[in-house]
């Protein structure tokens, strides 16, 4: 068990995947000698050569489209979209081909590819470098969408994604790249892709979060515990497939639920979670499912991004409003955000 950064764990996962299967290829913009702008592919070209890990022209639709063709030829490409907003040029390839090819061909043609997307804000990035695009992918049938919140998950979910017979959009929470944790290359008890995990048990309120929001939720839980409220934090890990069982079991136990996401709220993944939870746990709920999300605004510049991001205070604010009335609370001292 070594303590490494999430960036390093992702790098190790790619290295091990390249070692394990000669058909795995890594390519994209700057992933070669530079090792990627976040160094996630550091050293891979050195170890595996230009043929296995290489730079491409700057053309995201082309990168994803070429990966589709390589899959048809038996390879397992892992491509990088340098920042999430730079995945948008590939949207047609992803929505019309990556997601649909297996279905189109009645299962004869599968696309075992991974599209890595560094996502989210909180790193002081200028415009286009902090978007959260997971809902676009999660809403597209035929894509698996995964995001790690811990260093160990970063490693194992990426290994699972590479091994998956279907395309996986692997959302990497940028601001956790430098978080540290333990990871073992022996699998141990790490849950497979598709399962959610209860990161902290608690009897009072279920807080559902994923990716960069998970550490915030855990911090909120520690804070709440000091005030005598026990939050149960569920880390979704996989948005598609969605682990209804874990979420529903938790909310039926606690009777209250707050969903946290960094992306703008409207029609986001948090909306889906809230909708599902109330559909499936209505009679267990003592209060509405509340959401803490980014505002419905373009991601802000660094100077004001903190005002946009879900915070411990906002999660606690939502928790404090879990049993009163329908109106969003504008008057209480502790403001919260429900979007």
């Amino acid at each position, binding site marked *: 068990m070594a303590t490494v950064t999430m960036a390093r764990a992702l790098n190790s996962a790619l290295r091990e995947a390249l070692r394990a299967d000669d058909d795995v290829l890594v390519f994209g913009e700057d992933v070669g000698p530079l090792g990627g702008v976040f160094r996630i592919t550091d050293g891979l070209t050195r170890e595996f050569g230009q043929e296995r890990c290489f730079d491409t022209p700057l053309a995201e639709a082309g990168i994803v489209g070429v990966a589709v063709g390589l899959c*048809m030829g038996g390879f397992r490409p892992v491509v990088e979209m340098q920042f999430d907003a730079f995945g948008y040029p590939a949207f047609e390839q992803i929505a019309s081909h990556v997601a649909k090819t297996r279905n189109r061909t009645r299962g004869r043609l599968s696309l075992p590819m991974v599209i890595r997307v560094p996502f989210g804000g909180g790193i002081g990035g200028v415009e286009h470098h902090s978007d959260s695009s997971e809902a676009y992918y999660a809403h597209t049938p035929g894509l698996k969408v995964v995001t790690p919140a811990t260093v160990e998950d970063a490693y194992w979910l990426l290994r699972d994604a590479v091994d998956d017979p279907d395309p996986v959009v692997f959302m990497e929470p940028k601001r956790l790249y430098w978080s540290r944790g333990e990871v073992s290359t022996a699998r141990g008890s790490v849950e497979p892709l598709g399962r959610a995990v209860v990161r902290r048990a608690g009897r009072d309120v279920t807080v559902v979060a994923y990716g960069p929001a998970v550490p915030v939720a855990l911090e909120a839980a520690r804070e709440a515990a000091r005030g005598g409220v026990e939050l149960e934090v569920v880390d979704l890990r996989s948005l598609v497939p969605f682990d209804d069982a874990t979420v529903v079991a938790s909310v039926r136990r606690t009777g209250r639920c707050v969903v946290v996401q960094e992306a703008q709220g409207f029609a986001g993944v948090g909306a889906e979670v809230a909708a599902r939870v109330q559909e499936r746990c209505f009679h267990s709920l003592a209060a509405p499912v509340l959401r803490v999300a980014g505002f419905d605004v373009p991601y802000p510049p660094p100077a004001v991004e903190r005002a946009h991001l879900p915070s411990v205070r906002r999660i606690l604010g939502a928790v404090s409003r879990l049993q009163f009335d329908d109106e969003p609370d504008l008057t209480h001292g502790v403001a919260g955000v429900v979007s």
Partner: protein
Amino acid sequence: MSFQALRQTVDRLLPSSDPVRYVAEDGTPLPVPDDGGIPADAVLLDAFRRMVVGRRFDAQATVLTRQGRLAVYPSSRGQEACQIGAVLALREEDWLFPTYRDSMALFARGLDPLELLTLLRGEWHCGYDPMAWRTAPQCTPLATQAPHAVGLAEALRRRGRGGVVLVLVGDGGTSEGDFHEALNFAGVLGAPVVFLVQNNRYAISVPLERQSAAPALAFRGVGCGVPSEQVDGNDLVATLAVVSAAVERARAGRGPSLVEAHTYRVEPHTNADDAARYRDEEEVARWRAADPVVRLERYLRHRGLLTDREVEDARQEAERVAEALRAGLSGPLAGDPLELFSHVFAEPTPQLVEQRAWLAAELAAWDGDGGAGGDSDGVEEEGRSGWRR
């Protein structure tokens, strides 16, 4: 690069200023360049037969749309020479990436007409096994198949067991960013892929001059370092020769090429189109007269390769194919609603398992009601079970 070297490179990449042509419009053989070998007689005869049969198939398909047996059919009429000529340049180990327009290419590739019409019939999105046929699904989103073709060519290059990829794109498709990205990728990777642009002068109603100001679309290649050529796409002999040269160059490890075949879409875009709105009959008539099948027939007769006997044989085969098509499409449109969930993922997600169960239960209830389809989707009015509280 030195001035001299660059000049040479550019000259190598640029297409000839006039489309390559081996056969005059009236069927007379034209002088052939030294390096441009004429395809073997047997190949030309085979091509002729496929063109005749293909033409009949195409006409039959158009008729079947009128009878509602095909959802839609984009006719290849007039493009038989470039589609069939290009595909005959391929070996079995090679790959073909067709569009919705390329029924003749698929037919020449050997696919069963019914399988290649599955998409257009509305039964499923792809009716054949792409891996078995080394033929990608017919692609609808314009030019999006081009990067796939490059990726597969790159895969073949890496496997080192041979194989070349031919990808078909329309004149309209060349305006899409994906075409350019693919062409540029191909140049950089040196992938064994041939881009064939069938310039049939229209993209639905958009005429070539509103599509691009290029002197010819083949001039796209030089900007991506891809050698290019233009050919008379109604001249099967020239198309076959030029595409074969490009395919063999790729096979020899000398990278990608771009070929523009000048042709014409004689029919409307599809049966649903109304071409009278945007082009005049005179233009169409001119091109109808420049029929590629007739041209090849005259050429082969002129060379003494073809007799009435072969022509009659081809016609009979054509009728058999048309007959089989009518028979094959006479039944009701088959479809199992539960297949909706079968191929989304290798393993259905829990959500899909759940949704499948719901639909299965609903279908069972429908059966109980006396038949599927007995529900309203707000468009068509049909009887439905009286739901009561």
